[in-house]
C-alpha cells in the first residue's frame, strides 16, 4: 500500500532499511544469544543521524517527526526487535526532556542524545508499581538546591547502558499521583547504581536492569517541569512514544511475514512447494492483511501526533494494542509455517515470536491500553 510518504520520509525509511539489512540483521542472532548491548549498531545509528530524528533542530537534531521515528523503528524491528528497542527506548527517555525540559536542560542534554554519543532511558516501573504507576515508592526529597532520591526502579530498558535517565519519584506522598515529579539523573551520580540485570524471553539485545537510588543527590535544576507534574510528564510521554512501540510490533510482524513467505516457497513437501497449498496461502494472506491494517493505524496515529493534536491518548493506545496483538498472532503463525524447523534455534523465526510478546506488555499492558481507550470513550460520550 502507498502511504504517501514525502521524499524526506522515504529517504529516512530507505536509510533505516539499509542499516537494518547491512548492520542489524547480520548481528541479530549474536546479540540474542549474548544479551550484550549493541553499542556498535548504536554507533552506526548515531553517525547516520537517526538519533537526531525526533530532536528539535535548535538542539542538534533534525526536528522531523514521530512518523519518521516509527518508520525507523519499524525497519530496524524487521531485522531485530531487540536492537530496535535499544533505539526506541532512548527516544522514550528523551521525550520527557523534549516535551517538558526548559531551555537549559535541553541545551545540556539533547545535542549529545541527538548525536547518539549518549543514550537515554526512562525510569518509571518499580517492583510494586507496574500497571498501577501511582504506587511508586521511590522518593525525591528537596534539601536546599538539591533533591535526594531513594528507591529502586526495575525492568528499565537501557538501564546501566544509558547515560541520561528520566526518573519519576514521589516528592509528596500524601498527594498520591499528584505528588510525583520527573527528574533527569545522569549515570555516575554518587548514590545511583545498577542492580539486577534481567534475563529475558525476547528482545535480548536490549538490556533491562534495575536502577538503585541510595541517597542520590541531584541538582534541583534537574527537575523536569514542576513538582507534582510527574504523571502528566509520563502520560504525555507515553502518548507520543506508544506509536513507536506499535511500530516495533509492526516491524517484527513484517519481518516474520517475509521470512515465512520465503520459507513457504522454498520448503517442499509431497513433491511441491508448501506455498502451493491453500492452507498456507490463506495463513499468509491473513498475516499480510492484518499487518497492513496495523500499519495504516500506526501511521495515521503518528501523523496525528505530528499534527500537534493535543489529545492522542486513545488513538495511541489503539495503535499499540492492535499492532502488538497482530505481531503476536503473525509471529506465531509464521513459526507454524516453518513447522518443526521453526521451533529450532537454527532458524531465525522463533526469535520473532519471543520478541513480539513484550510488545503486548510494556509501555502499558494491552489490558491497560483497553482501559485508556474505554475511559476516553466514556468521557467523550458524557460530553
Amino acid at each position: 500500500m502507498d502511504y504517501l510518504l514525502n521524499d524526506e520520509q522515504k529517504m529516512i525509511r530507505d536509510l533505516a532499511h539499509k542499516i537494518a539489512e547491512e548492520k542489524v540483521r547480520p548481528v541479530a542472532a549474536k546479540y540474542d544469544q549474548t544479551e550484550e548491548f549493541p553499542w556498535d549498531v548504536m554507533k552506526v545509528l548515531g553517525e547516520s543521524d537517526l538519533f537526531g530524528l525526533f530532536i528539535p533542530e535548535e538542539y542538534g537534531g533534525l526536528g522531523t517527526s514521530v512518523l519518521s521515528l516509527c518508520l525507523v523503528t519499524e525497519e530496524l524491528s524487521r531485522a531485530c526487535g531487540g536492537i530496535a528497542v535499544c533505539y526506541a527506548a532512548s527516544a522514550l527517555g528523551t521525550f520527557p526532556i523534549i516535551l517538558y525540559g526548559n531551555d537549559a536542560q535541553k541545551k545540556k542534554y539533547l545535542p549529545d542524545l541527538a548525536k547518539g554519543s549518549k543514550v537515554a532511558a526512562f525510569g518509571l516501573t518499580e517492583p510494586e508499581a507496574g500497571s498501577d504507576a501511582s504506587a511508586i515508592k521511590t522518593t525525591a526529597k528537596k534539601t536546599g538546591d538539591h533533591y535526594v532520591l531513594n528507591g529502586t526502579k526495575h525492568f528499565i530498558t537501557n538501564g546501566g547502558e544509558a547515560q541520561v535517565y528520566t526518573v519519576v519519584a514521589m516528592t509528596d506522598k500524601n498527594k498520591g499521583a499528584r505528588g510525583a515529579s520527573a527528574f533527569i539523573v545522569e549515570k555516575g551520580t554518587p548514590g545511583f547504581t545498577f542492580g539486577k540485570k534481567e534475563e529475558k524471553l525476547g528482545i535480548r539485545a536490549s538490556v533491562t536492569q534495575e536502577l538503585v537510588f541510595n541517597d542520590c543527590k541531584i541538582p534541583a535544576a534537574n527537575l523536569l517541569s514542576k513538582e507534582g507534574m510527574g504523571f502528566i510528564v509520563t502520560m504525555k510521554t507515553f502518548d507520543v512514544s506508544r506509536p513507536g512501540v506499535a511500530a516495533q510490533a509492526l516491524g517484527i510482524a513484517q519481518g516474520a511475514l517475509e521470512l515465512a513467505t520465503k520459507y513457504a516457497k522454498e520448503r517442499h513437501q509431497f513433491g511441491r512447494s508448501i506455498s502451493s497449498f491453500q492452507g498456507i496461502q490463506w495463513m499468509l494472506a491473513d498475516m499480510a492483511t492484518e499487518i497492513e491494517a496495523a500499519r495504516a493505524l500506526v501511521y495515521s496515529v503518528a501523523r496525528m501526533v505530528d499534527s500537534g493534536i493535543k489529545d492522542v491518548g486513545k488513538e495511541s493506545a489503539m495503535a499499540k494494542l492492535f499492532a502488538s496483538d497482530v505481531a503476536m498472532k503473525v509471529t506465531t503463525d509464521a513459526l507454524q509455517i516453518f513447522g518443526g524447523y521453526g521451533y529450532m534455534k537454527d532458524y531465525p523465526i522463533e526469535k520473532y515470536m519471543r520478541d513480539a510478546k513484550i510488545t503486548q506488555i510494556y509501555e502499558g499492558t494491552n489490558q491497560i491500553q483497553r482501559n485508556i481507550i474505554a475511559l476516553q470513550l466514556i468521557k467523550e460520550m458524557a460530553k
Partner: protein
Amino acid sequence: MNIIVCIKQVPETTEVRINPETNTLIREGVKSIVNPFDMYAIEEGVRLKEKNTGKVTVITMGPPQAEAVLREAISMGADEGILICDRAFAGSDTWATSYTLSAAIKKLGAFDVILCGKQASDGDTAQVGPGISTHLDVPQVTYVKKIEEVKGQSMRVERMMEEGYEIIETPLPALLTVVKEINEPRLPSLKGMMRAKQSKITVWSQKELNLDSQKIGLCGSPTQVVKIFTPPQRAGGQMLKGEVPEIVSQLAEIVKDTAA
C-alpha cells in the same frame, strides 16, 4: 588538502548481460550503483579530509542519470560533484575516458591527490586511473591498501602485492587507486543525504572542457570492440572413484584416449 575522487556508475550485478549485436552492456532493468571499488575511494577521500581538512570533489563521466552517484558520494561527506556529460563522449574507451577526466581535473585547478577505485566492476580494465595520471603527468600508485601518512608534499602508502605489500613514498600531487582492504565505507547520514539532495551538481560538456572532437568519444578511442561475449559455461568434470592406484591407471587410460 584538495582531494579529487573519480567514480563510475555501474549496473548492480556481476552477471552483466551483453547485447551481441551492438557489443554493449544491457542496462535495462538493472539498478545502477556506485562502482563498489569507488566506494572505498570516496571513503578514503572523506577520511583524508577529516584528518587533514580540505575539500573532496567527486567527478564522474556518464549520462545525466549518473548524477545519482555524485549525490551518493556527497551524502557520505564529499563536498562537490561534477558530472561530465555530453553525447560527444559516448563510446569512449579507457584512453578517451581518462583523457576527458584529466581535462576536467585540469579545469578544476590545483589538487593534492586523486583517488580512484582499483577498477570498475563492469569493464574490469583497471586502466582509467593510471590513464588519468599519465595524461596529467603525475605519479601513480595502484592497489593502495593503506595511506600511512601525509607529510607536507608527500605521502607514504602501502601497496597491495600478491604476496605481502610494498611501502611507497610518493610526492604529491599523485594518483592512487585503492583496494577494498583500505577501509570500510560508511553508510550515508541523514544530514548528508539532505545536503546531497540540495546540492547543485556542476555539469561540464565538451564545450566547457574545450576538447578536440578527435580526442574524445568513439573517435578518440583507439580500442575497437570487435566482439564481446559471455564465455560458455565449462562442462562439469569427471570424478574418478576408487583407490589411488586404480584412479591413476584410469586417468592414464583417459589421457591416452584423449590424446589419440
